[in-house]
């Protein structure tokens, strides 16, 4: 196979994987950093890294976990570089506000705000389970924690969200 042909096949493989998983990557990044603008930057960096190490991905069926891991690391690197402070929900940037204001459904808006306020440790496994369809074992592997810890966090996350939403409804 000529070098050009190999390059073309590599690029086609990359485009195929990325086009299928792009929404998941963006949403995961957005809920990790809670800022759509930063999420776009993180995803761009992650795609660049994925391109350079595409040969390490042996099977496309493993692409989702592989790419989510890269996004997770890029997000950590981004915050390490920028040393951003914790986001205060009462002083959001326009980009952050837009993320919360996307829906007109008050129930969804309340839930989105509750998710936004949720501790990172609780929000991440929830995103991986509900949005990405990951199993407890897969979440544990990705986050580098034990399966029991994942279940505890998921349980606490839902109880917390339930309470927050009930509080909003009562107010």
């Amino acid at each position: 196979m000529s070098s050009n042909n190999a390059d073309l096949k590599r690029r086609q493989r990359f485009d195929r994987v990325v086009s299928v998983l792009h929404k998941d990557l963006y949403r995961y990044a957005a809920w990790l950093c809670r800022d759509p603008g930063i999420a776009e930057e993180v995803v761009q960096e992650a795609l660049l890294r994925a391109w350079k190490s595409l040969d390490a991905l042996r099977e496309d069926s493993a692409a989702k976990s592989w790419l989510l891991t890269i996004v997770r690391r890029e997000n950590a690197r981004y915050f390490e570089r920028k040393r951003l402070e914790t986001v205060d929900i009462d002083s959001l940037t326009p980009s952050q506000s837009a993320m919360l204001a996307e829906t007109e459904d008050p129930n969804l808006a309340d839930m989105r705000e509750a998710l936004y306020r949720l501790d990172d440790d609780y929000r991440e496994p929830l995103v991986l389970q509900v949005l990405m369809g990951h199993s407890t074992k897969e979440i544990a592997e990705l986050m580098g924690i034990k399966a029991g810890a994942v279940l505890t966090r998921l349980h606490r996350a839902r109880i917390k969200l339930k309470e927050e939403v009930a509080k909003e409804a009562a107010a």
Partner: protein
Amino acid sequence: MNVSGKIMNCEDYRVAIAADPSESFEGGAAHVAACESCNAYRAEMRVLDEVIGKALAIDVPELKIPDLPPIGEDDENVVNLPFRRASKISTPAWIGIAAGFALAAIIGVQFAGNGPANDQLLAAEVLAHVDHEPWALTVTDVSVSEEQFSNVVNSTIGTMDRNVGLVSYATSCIINGMTIPHLVIQGEHGPVTLLLMPNEMVSSPVSLSGESVNGVILPHGNGSIAIIGQREERIQELEQRVVEAVEWSI
């Protein structure tokens, strides 16, 4: 019944269903079939989960793929090592020589490479580390004990099939603040260092090339493996064997 064989009570069930509303855990269906109250709780959790799913599904902007650099042998991830040790020195004199080379190797990496900064820094860290344990690089036919090996390549790190080669040195070392296995196997042309780094990801293979040594840092799962041997050592032939032999726990 749950995994332990006990009948699930209401409290256990509610904790489990809040962690996993799809009810993939054992014993849940049996409990809920006999408990109206938990049945209602499950329905409540599933409604909650539906709202969570919708709330998480934020709008996604149009896909923008960044400018992708060409991939080739001469790409940016090659680290050149202008100064490295001579092969087959395993006497105490080697310790002093290595100390002298250590700084040169680090400087060489920092200025010769132009690849991603993180990969370059890791390469520098790896080489500095290898230079600080020169006594590990001895030609021998004596392998470390099974106990020593399993203390180093332990369950928190992963597993390594020892058939990859005669392991003559195994110790736990610190790279970038993480404890990792530092192993030496006997290659065709002398000792070959393996650093198993489950938490250090490189964007693509980082070649380490010098006058007397050659090596590579390979991406492997969520981590990477450094393989460094003598100049004549055919590292490429080792790469696949080593990668296939190592499996991370995390």
